[in-house]
Structure formats: C-alpha cells, structure tokens
C-alpha cells in the first residue's frame, strides 16, 4: 500500500499544516509517512504545496511522483500543481475558488464560513473530507492529531471544522462535476 497525496493552495491557507496533520495521523495509525512541502519566499500568497506519502513500508524517495489524490484550494496552485496525476487519481478542488471542470468540486471554504462560522478553518474542513476519502484511519484518530497541532483555545472550532469536512464526505462522497 502506498498513497501519494498532494495538497496545494495559496500560502496562508494552512495547506502545509493540513499535510503535517495528515502525515502525523498516518504515523499514529502505524504507517510510514513522509510530509514534504514547497513554497515561495512570501509568508502569505504564492502557490504552496504540501505532499504526503503514506506507505506500509519505509519510504525512500520522499516526494510525490504521480498523485493518487490531489486537493487544490486556489486557482494559481491548481494551474501550477494540478499535473503529474496517477491514472484514476481523485482530484478535489474548492468549488468557489478553483475552475477545474474535470475535478470533483466541493465547498470547503463555504462550509468553513457558513457551517463552522470561520473561514480560517477551511484547511481543517478539507482535512476532515480527506480523512473520509482516504479511509486509512478512524476519524477519532485524525481529530486527536488535529487537536495536538493547533493553538490552545481553538479545539472546539477545529473539532467542528473537522466534523463538517467529514460530513461533507459522508453526504457528497466523491462527487464529480456534471
């Protein structure tokens, strides 16, 4: 088993943190996991990419070659990183931020804003969805990992965001644009 996941977006959207939490959750579940990242010199803005390899054996080459799962949260990131996909890859984009007709479009930002109440947790909503999509470890383990990686006092907000993302997966699944 080897899954190659690429998450991309704009610097400041929490792309890298989402990858870190996903990788750590995989490690906690007993998998070998590596998270790498690349971004420009800006602290906000610019295309950012976070990649996670999850395998049941040791990972040598640490970067994603052909992504099995690609998530894009911004148009520039999609334009730049929306390539090098494995055959039959699952491609998920934010329905309000990315124009990508061939991708599965989901309202991550809208859900964070309307259902959870804070746009800032868009990355955690996306992570909740991704947890369901990957189906490698229980939601509770992912939640525990999220809680270990966020600032104090934001537990409830992030728990709600993760749940909203998971609900999105449970209700929508991998919905393709039609």
């Amino acid at each position, binding site marked *: 088993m080897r899954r190659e996941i690429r998450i991309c977006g704009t610097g400041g959207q929490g792309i890298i943190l989402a990858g*870190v939490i996903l990788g750590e959750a995989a490690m906690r579940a007993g998998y*070998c*996991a590596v*998270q790498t990242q690349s*971004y420009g010199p800006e602290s906000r803005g610019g295309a950012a990419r976070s990649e996670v390899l999850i395998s049941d054996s040791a*990972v040598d*080459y*640490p970067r994603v070659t052909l992504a099995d799962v690609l998530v894009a949260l911004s148009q520039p990131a999609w334009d730049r990183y929306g390539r090098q996909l494995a055959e039959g890859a699952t491609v998920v984009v934010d329905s309000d931020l990315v124009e990508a007709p061939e991708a599965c479009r989901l309202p991550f930002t809208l859900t964070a804003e309307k259902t959870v109440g804070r746009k800032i947790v868009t990355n955690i909503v996306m992570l909740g969805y991704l947890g369901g999509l990957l189906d490698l470890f229980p939601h509770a383990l992912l939640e525990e990992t999220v809680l270990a990686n966020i600032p104090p006092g934001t537990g409830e907000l992030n728990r709600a965001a993760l749940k909203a993302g998971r609900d999105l997966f449970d209700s929508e699944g991998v919905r393709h644009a039609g």
Partner: protein
Amino acid sequence: MPAELDRRRMARVLGRSEQFAQGDVACALGAVLGGCDFFAGYPITPATEIAEAVSRMLPRLGGVAIQMEDEIASLSAVLGAAWTGSRAMTATSGPGFSLMQEGIGYACMTETPCVIVDVQRSGPSTGQPTEPAQGDMLQAKWGTHGDHEIIALAPSSVQECVDLTRLAFDLAEEYRNPVLVMTDGEIGHMRERILLPDLADVEPRHRQRPSSLPDTFVPFAATNGKVPEMPDFGTGYHAYVTGLTHNERGFPATDDADAHTRLVRRLCEKITDATERLTRVEVDSEDGARVGLVSYGISARSAAGAVRLARERGIRLSHLRLVTVFPFPERAVLEFVRDLDRVIVPELNLGQICHSVREALAGAARVERVSRIGGEMIHPDEILHAVSHGGEPV
C-alpha cells in the same frame, strides 16, 4: 561550564519519544541530546526553524540561545562560549555559511569544538532561498583558507538529523574541531517519524580537560594522541588563544617555520589519522552488479528509490551511502567499487562529491554524475536512466 544533565527536565523539553518531526527541529532535538547548552545564530531560510526550536528548549535547560547581528558574530559567539566550557552550536544556510568561513578557520586553528548545521539551499549567493541544494559540499571542506581538516556528516532522514547532530557534539569535543552537519532544505523542512533515545543512555562525551596543574600545563601540547587538553576560561589556567601560528604554549610564533609545520600537520593529522574511526557508511551491494551508486544526504533517498526500482525491473545495482563525507571515506569507496565498472554520483549540484569519489578511485572505476539544480529532487528514474545510458561526465 554545562550543568550536569537533568534528565527529567530534558525529557520534558524534548517531548514525546515518538514524534512526526521536521528535519530542522530534529537537529535541535539532537543538539539537546548532545548536551548543547549554547546557541547563537541569525535567521535564514531554510534553517530558521533550528534557531526557533533551540530558543524554546535551551533556556528551559539552563542554556542560552541568542540571535546575533549576523552569521560572523554568530559563530564568533559560539567559539567564545566553547572556551567557557559550553557545548555550542550555530545553524545557517549557504549565504550565512559563506560568512562563517572565517570563523571556521579560526576554530580549526584554535582547536575550538563547535557544531555548525548547514541547511543547504540553492545558490550561489542568495539564490533560491526556499529550495534545497547540495551546493556547499566542497565549501564545507575548502571554504576557509589554509590547510585544515573538517568533519562533515550528511543526514538523509529526519531521524539522522537527530542522531548525527547529537554525534557531532561528541566528535567536536573528542577532536577539538568544527563538526559540520550538512543537511539541506528538503530534509530540513521534511517531516518523518523520529524516535528519541532512552535518556538513561544519553551521556555526552566530556571534553578532555587539563590533567596537570596550571603552572605546568602546556595548552597546545598534544597529550591525548594529537588532541590537546582544553581548559575552560576562568578556571585558573593560562590559555592564550590566537588564530596566528602559535607554539605549544599558545603564543604567536609567526616566523617559525618548524612551529607552523608542526602545528598545522598536527591539526590535519588528528583528523586524517582517525578517518577509519570517523567513517560511517551504509553499503547495499548486489551480487553481480557492475554499476554502483555513491550518494549522501537527501540524494541518497533518490538513490535508494532507484535501487528499489532497479531490482523490481531485474537490473543489478549496488549502493554506497556516505554518512561521513569528510574526512572522505576513501577506503570504503575503494572497497565498494572492487567489482564495479562504473559509479554514478547523484547530487543536487553540478558535481562536487563526484570529484572526491573520482580522486579516491584513481581510475579503479569510471565515475559519472547525475546532477540537478533548481530546487527539484533527483527522481529515481533519472538515476536509472543514467545506469542504462550513462550519466554526465566528471
């Protein structure tokens, strides 16, 4: 003088024994395990996280972490701290590493133990700040002027960032020499599982302090093999410390050819004589292979990927990974190529350690390279292509 290890407090500072840690943070954890109690540095991508992590940890252990005005001052502060008995470290990337070359030479000449982590990024000059490279490898050996030797280790995983940074402190103390941990922006920012050692087994190697009384102590006499005993400032010993050529008492002897020759030969030989002891390599030899890879650092991950793919495809391929890069493990490389016709060296530069390999082999096998710059990793397929079709010439 560093306080005795408070293992209980150290355990709290280090955190969980299993972590999903970033390479830079792992270097900081390794430093704490190595007994580091002084850090001075200047922020620079992609090494800043080391400074951030030690700033959180060292004060809680009674140590010091300071941000200096630049990298020259950072290494100078480290060297001063070392003479007060500290186990001291700095961390930087290419542009800062260039500025530190003067201090590295001073550390070699004054035999001041110190650890320098260079999280290499794409150069020359400020280059691509956020992109990894292995472009400082020969600078590590020859960046500072004059004859000298250096110890340089190259981690290829986050776990090795812990283990080799920890080891670097012991080697610095044992040989009284700068020890370089040559990592890169990819490993520095990569996260993987690490396991921290049982703290009961953590016992940093102590510096060899004077065994004679102050009135008979000769500070630069090689009492210990070729390494002199080192007094701490403020303990009653007279130690004149200078970058000028000095005699065994430490006083300048700049017009004395014999004193200079004796001193600099000893500085070099204390490292080169120990090459076998310092050599750490990982050999993965395949029976019947005629081609082998020699790799180090992050490129070793690409090489290991190539070996895996090769074996899946029935191609025979051997692999030697250098953990110690300097002193260059010539004998290990020669031994590795015994049955090989060709050796390929993948590096994130336009060819650096491949020259050391070719020099060591002296024609025993043909040396080729797979070079990549610009910030992307070398893909295992690129190495396999070179195995089948030949790499770039060295």
